[in-house]
């Protein structure tokens, strides 16, 4: 009797047949249609944003309209299929990597269980190998001989509206974090497949607002939030007031100053939202402490580049303003703040897209004389490299005890760790400013788990999705919280600072989130300061 009842219970629990029978489901996955319902998709881009972007020189965002993923009819252009297939063909020609990634997967399954979306959902289509297969099946069908002749038997699949919908669902359940590529024996980078899927979808007007609105804002005013120059400046000024209240030191940063030695660019989130604000205070304190000749820009006021999450052209255009502003102001080099995808763009694409920046010099620290040859070509260095070098040369007056209320751990942001290899510098800095511990080995450095909300997925309407894809990260934080009493999760990424805050609020509410430079700023002893006891460092409220 009990057995029969248990079966009944399980029927009410799992009505759908289990699809996967091994690491790589081989059969029916292609035939199971996606269902869009509130909470599992991000809102489509607003018509006026798409129209605006499409009207801009060098950009192509067609088919602006009102539509919803929940509708049967997505109001695609009549010849949508032709557009997609031609678009794919064009990209196979243009990007050799895409062609290789389409051809060389042996379906070994090594990547299958490495994706945080799969680990948090159990949905087989979130296995990287299957995510790529969504595109590969169409590629096989239309671009390989076997597929053309054998169709489905050769793993080919005709491009249909159903397939397009699937692309939308699963290319926006990938944060392009590249964790899977670390484990692939062929180095297949599923992130690049996702990038292509999203590019192709934009060709027929399928995109999300949380990405296109920041892109259009950045194009218009220079930053994601659409802040105008005076507001941007007001915000930084407000932070200097806070610093004065806390330390008695009045800092007077400059904006758009021609002839400064260094241009400083950081994600705008650092100057307008908690907890990034404290990191921005850290930058201000650090630069004041060592007395460098630098300026902020209210035009190139955004380090982030959501263009990366749309298409090549938008990424290139938004990125171009950095060099343009550096040239206009006549600086020697660019110093970049704590950001993730900003560094992916800088490190991997900027030079070929908008370089060479001949008008700049190879970055040289004005304080230590260190020449940053690693940035000989891009002429732009990361604030953590810069700070680690200062510490190494004993140029910072640090009082670690000012962070004694903190037990930190460090989250490697996907982009800084996997896309630019910045792993030791932040750790070196932490060693000197705070008591901290590592999370488990298989969740850090190049194997780090994504915050779950990167690539423009940090929007609130998909909060449950973000919480489940962030589970692997949160789970490792929980471990160090329980074992070592960790109360602060540090990182060098502005998106992380925002998204990990929500993630921690849900999974580990006693753990806060901060930038590494916040901890640096808090530990710095400024000359002439009148700082009292600050129980919470730069976060202490003083009136």
């Amino acid at each position, binding site marked *: 009797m009990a057995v029969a009842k248990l079966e009944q219970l399980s029927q009410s629990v799992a009505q759908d047949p289990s699809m996967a029978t091994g690491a790589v489901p081989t059969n029916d996955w292609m035939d199971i249609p996606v269902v869009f319902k509130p909470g599992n998709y991000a809102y489509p881009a607003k018509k006026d944003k798409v129209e605006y972007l499409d009207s801009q020189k060098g950009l192509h965002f067609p088919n602006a309209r009102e539509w919803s993923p929940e509708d049967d009819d997505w109001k695609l252009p009549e010849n949508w299929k032709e557009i997609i297939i031609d678009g794919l063909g064009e990209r196979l020609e243009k990007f050799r990597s895409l062609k290789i990634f389409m051809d060389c997967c042996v379906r070994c399954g090594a990547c299958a269980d490495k994706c945080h979306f799969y680990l948090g959902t159990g949905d087989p289509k979130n296995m990287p190998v299957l995510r790529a297969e969504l595109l590969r099946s169409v590629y096989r069908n239309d671009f390989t001989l076997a597929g053309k002749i054998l169709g489905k038997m050769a793993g080919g699949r005709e491009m249909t509206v159903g397939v397009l919908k699937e692309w939308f669902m699963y290319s926006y359940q990938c944060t392009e974090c590249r964790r899977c590529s670390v484990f692939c024996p062929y180095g297949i980078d599923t992130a690049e497949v996702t990038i292509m899927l999203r590019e192709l979808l934009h060709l027929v007007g399928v995109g999300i607002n949380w990405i296109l609105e920041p892109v259009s804002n950045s194009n218009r005013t220079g930053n994601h939030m659409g802040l105008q120059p005076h507001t941007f400046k007001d915000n930084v000024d407000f932070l200097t007031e806070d610093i004065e209240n806390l330390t008695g030191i009045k800092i007077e940063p400059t904006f758009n100053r021609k002839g400064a030695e260094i241009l400083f660019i950081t994600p705008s989130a650092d100057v307008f*939202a908690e907890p990034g604000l404290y990191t921005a205070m850290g930058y201000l304190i650090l630069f004041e402490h060592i007395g460098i000749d630098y300026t902020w820009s209210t035009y190139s006021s955004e380090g982030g580049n959501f263009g990366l999450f749309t298409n090549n052209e938008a990424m290139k255009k938004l990125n171009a303003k950095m060099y343009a502003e550096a040239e206009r102001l006549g600086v020697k080099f660019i110093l970049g703040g704590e950001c993730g995808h900003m560094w992916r763009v800088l490190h991997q694409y900027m030079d070929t897209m908008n370089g060479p920046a001949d008008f700049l010099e190879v970055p040289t620290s004005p304080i230590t004389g260190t020449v940053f040859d690693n940035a000989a070509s891009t002429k732009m260095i990361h604030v953590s490299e810069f700070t680690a070098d200062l510490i190494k040369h004993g140029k910072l007056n640090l009082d670690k005890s000012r962070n004694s209320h903190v037990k930190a751990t460090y989250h490697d942001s996907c982009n800084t760790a996997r896309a630019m290899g910045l792993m030791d510098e932040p750790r070196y800095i932490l060693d000197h400013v705070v008591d901290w511990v590592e999370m488990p080995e298989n969740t850090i450095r190049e194997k780090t788990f994504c915050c779950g909300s990167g690539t423009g997925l940090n929007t609130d309407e998909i909060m449950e999705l973000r919480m489940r894809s962030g589970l692997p990260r949160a789970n490792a934080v929980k471990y160090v919280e329980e074992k070592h009493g960790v109360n602060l999760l540090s990182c060098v990424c502005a998106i992380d600072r925002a998204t990990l805050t929500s993630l921690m609020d849900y999974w580990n509410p006693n753990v806060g989130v901060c930038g590494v430079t916040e901890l640096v700023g808090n530990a710095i002893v400024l000359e002439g300061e009148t700082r009292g006891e600050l129980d919470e460092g730069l976060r202490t409220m003083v009136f």
Partner: protein
Amino acid sequence: MKLEEALHNNRYKIVDRWVQYTLETYKASQFFTREKDSFANPIGGTVRDSLRKIFSLLIKNQETANYKEPLSRLMHLRSVQEFTPSQAVAPLNAVKHITRDVLAADKATKLLIGELYDFEFSVDLAVLAAFDLYVECREKIYKIRVEEIRSGKELLTDGACPSKALKNITDIKR
């Protein structure tokens, strides 16, 4: 043999089947059952860990308050996954059926089934507590959403200094 002893002796068998049953509610469950490293497999790890704890409380007829920690971990997980509320909570019920099954399969313990009333009552209480926790988690999600929207709204208006406005937002009540 006493019931308590029988449950204790069979605890691994029962919990294993309970874990297996719960993990089968996920579409691609094989990996979740197989991989033992809880950092590589957080769903599997969380389910295994919390069910093990809950079972040891159940056989001791513990106060419901003690269930809160392991139940809450499980509900944090299942309330953000694609389950209906009943699907999210239902696997807890399964332990009743599994326990009966396991005891019935062995001659030495078969007769103890008649004494399961108290154990099953404890399961019922745990299920009810889980439902409260499920709703708590859902509310937390909405609060976090509201918090994000609120900070976002301030940012989109170009007037007042957003960072100043942010200072006024009180922390999420936890």
